[in-house]
């Protein structure tokens, strides 16, 4: 299995799916001549040509709408919105058209489209460019929401996304693009949606994250083990919708404690959903309230120290765990 960075694994997934299925095509802002703002699509224009790798105007709503229309007509578009911060502008198309057409048409029309976007803070991009809003998309029935945390997952999940008959919101944490890992080169390597991954087994507490936050969780687990002798299980959700809550519940029934780690603002965020579901389904197993370690409820400041303070850190996770014992 070759080792590669997540951005390269994503590119491989796009390439392989374009080679496999000629109805797959890519469109988005600066995915062609520029090579993709995070270099994910680099080289694909040269390989596949302008017809299948389309640079678009800066018109988020328009290009997602075009993707929907193309998908309705039997193509399998991937629309790259550059970052989640710009996806607000396309939210109506995603929520009111892509997510609902199958239902409103009584199953006559479906929208097999992949919408990719980068997310996350930590690069001092300030308030408008540092959103982590995976949970926002997960709220809408009709969508699927995928948030990979490793190169292999990124590849397997993205390939799987192209084989889904629905709109898949595929969200990549900018901090993960450079991560390295072994990635299968089997062209049929797929990871099914709704299968959480137990990254690390443990017996004292369950740490739940996805995308960027599993890495804080994992580092926290190491610190807990080394410094406190606490054994933490780390679960990577991989997809938020469908959500594999069963794996989380099984873990909590074993550990009796859970901490959700999420970059997004805590108030009204997806961590609340996870916390509520764990309580609903594992109430009698809980030795302490489920804790949430999330982003602070402020617009993201540019200054490095302030940004650092606004984001959840492994120390915050450790602290939350220690408070449970």
């Amino acid at each position, binding site marked *: 299995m070759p080792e590669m960075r997540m951005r390269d694994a994503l590119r491989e997934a796009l390439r392989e799916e374009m080679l496999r299925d000629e109805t797959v*095509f890519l469109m988005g802002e600066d995915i062609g001549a520029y090579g993709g703002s995070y270099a994910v699509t680099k080289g694909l224009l040269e390989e596949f040509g302008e*017809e299948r790798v*389309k640079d*678009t*105007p800066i*018109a988020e*709503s*328009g*290009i*997602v*709408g*075009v*993707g*929907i*229309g*193309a*998908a*309705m*007509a*039997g*193509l399998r*578009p991937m629309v790259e919105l550059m970052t989640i911060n710009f996806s607000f502008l396309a939210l*109506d*198309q995603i929520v*009111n*058209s892509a997510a609902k*057409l*199958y*239902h*409103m*048409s*009584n*199953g*006559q*029309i*479906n929208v097999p489209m992949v919408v990719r976007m980068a997310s996350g803070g930590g690069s001092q991009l300030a308030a408008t460019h540092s959103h982590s809003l995976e949970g926002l998309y997960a709220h809408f*029935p*009709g969508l*699927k929401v995928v948030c990979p945390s490793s190169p292999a997952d990124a590849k397997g999940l993205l390939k799987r996304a192209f084989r889904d*008959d*629905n709109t898949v919101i595929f969200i990549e944490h900018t901090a993960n693009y450079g991560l390295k890992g072994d990635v299968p080169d089997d062209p049929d390597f797929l990871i099914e949606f709704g299968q959480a991954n137990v990254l690390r087994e443990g017996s004292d507490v369950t740490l739940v994250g996805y995308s960027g936050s599993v890495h804080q969780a994992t580092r926290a687990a190491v610190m807990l083990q080394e410094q406190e002798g606490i054994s933490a299980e780390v679960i990577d959700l991989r997809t938020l919708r469908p959500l594999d809550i069963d794996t989380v519940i099984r873990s909590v029934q074993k550990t009796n404690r859970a901490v959700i780690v999420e970059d997004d603002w805590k108030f009204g965020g997806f961590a609340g959903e996870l916390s509520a579901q764990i309580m609903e389904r594992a109430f009698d197993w809980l030795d302490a309230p489920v804790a949430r370690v999330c982003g602070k409820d402020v617009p993201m400041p540019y200054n490095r120290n302030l940004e650092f303070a606004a984001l959840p850190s492994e120390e915050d996770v450790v602290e939350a765990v220690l408070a449970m014992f």
Partner: protein
Amino acid sequence: MTATPRLARKAREAEPDIDQLLDFLYQMQLIRRFEERTGEMYTKGKVRGFLHLYTGQEACAVGALATLQPQDKVVTHYRDHGHAIARGMDPNRVMAELFGRQDGVSGGRGGSMHLYDASIGFLGGYAIVAAHLPLAVGLGLAANMKKENFVTLCVFGDGSVGEGEFHEALNLAVLWNTPVVFFCENNLYGMGVSFQESLSTQVTTLAAAYNMPAVSVDGMDVTAVYRETLKAVEHCRAGKGPYFVEAMTYRYRGHSMADPELYRLKDEVEKYRKRDAIDRLKARLMEGGHLDGAGWEAIVERVEKVVEDSIAFADASPNPPIDTLFRYVTKEPGDA
């Protein structure tokens, strides 16, 4: 249960012949009566939600849709009954949809604003103003990429012109040379706001600025609509890119059934009623000796039967079972 697009078998002639004009008259009358009766069904509580009647605008749907071929696609806004019927959607299943019943074209899930019949390329009524314009461009892009020679007719109102997506869609359509006819039904109002108050310019001036042909046509004259839209469709079919048609028309009823119509005077409605598309075509055919009183009566009766049958059909159709609530949220392998 698949329907047949209307007139699918006829070659499109630049000028409609008498048979076709008689058919236009029939269709316009069918839509007129369908809408009048639908309004009554709303009052009776059989049709619910938002109901936007098409009365007055019949010449637009009938003239424009008659230019299409079976492989073509239609997307339109929430005021969609007229286009659906003109495309050949089964009136029974349209009425059943308005009643929210299982045999409705959208299985009772869509309602008045969301008629879909993929079997005749009728890809929906859309209730978010201007949201379907980019979809039409996507359909056009797919026609190009798949080398399928279909044209997409995209119908919307004057009110859509103020939305950002109007702009994004027109720009993309021209940039990517997509076979899309943008068909703007300018009935002078978007709800209660007149288009002069909501647009700083003329619709066609703006459309033309994107680098596509843009014409304005009398939308109360079915032949004129047919003629100009046919040019547009042929332009698209020839691979020359999008085309914009503005049809100047008028709705006789309020915006929706809830509209108190405070913003316009009865006089104005009367003025437009005098230019009624049905009356005019009827008069023309009678003057030309192609229709007499009995012929008109026959049309009226045929229409009555179709409309009354649709109501009976809708009434007889069951509600979708509650246990189907979670159906059609996502499409999974193995789904029907």
